[in-house]
């Protein structure tokens, strides 16, 4: 349990990058990019975790109860928004690319760009 969550982080990152590099379909590539980004949430939340601690909400627990790190959670939240924004923009590009080039294969796109 010591390092296992971090190994999962590396695995997700590596698998996602593999997908991005080998993808033959833009939408598939964008989804792989989402996977790459998801590794960062897992990393952030894993480094801020404290064994046996509560979530950082002090409504029905007293203020000095040991709680996990709230900062990484705030960072991960920001990260999720960024992910949504970038994905939307990339999808718009993909739709437009399909209209202009008639294909979604990244390699064909590179050949066709003219």
């Amino acid at each position: 349990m010591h390092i296992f969550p971090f190994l999962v982080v590396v695995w997700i990152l590596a698998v996602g990058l593999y997908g991005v590099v080998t993808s033959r379909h833009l939408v598939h590539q964008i989804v792989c990019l989402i996977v790459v980004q998801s590794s960062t949430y897992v990393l952030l939340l894993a480094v801020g975790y404290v064994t046996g601690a509560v979530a950082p909400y002090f409504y029905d627990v007293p203020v000095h109860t040991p709680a996990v790190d709230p900062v990484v959670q705030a960072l991960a939240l920001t990260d999720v928004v960024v992910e949504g924004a970038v994905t939307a923009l990339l999808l718009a590009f993909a739709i437009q690319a399909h209209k202009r080039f008639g294909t979604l294969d990244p390699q064909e796109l590179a050949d066709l760009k003219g």
Partner: protein
Amino acid sequence: MTGVLAVHTAYSVPVPLMDALQITVLVLVAAGATAVVLTRQPVRQVIVLSGYGLLLAILFMTFQAPDVTLSELTVGAVALPLLLLLALAKVRKKEE
């Protein structure tokens, strides 16, 4: 009453049990990521992605991050797949 979405229940779960839960979900998440990447058929991939989002949400819950869980559910498991499906619908309409 902390509102409908407060998630403090994990507090009372004994540590070793928590460990076991986290390990299980972590393994599932790793497998989920692999499945997303290896699903090459785009529409099917979006559905797998939605499932992966759900797994991540559960993982974040075990990491005591209910706020991120909620975001991941709304964005990762619902909103993003919706956007992806719309884009695919547009692209497929022309391909047929």
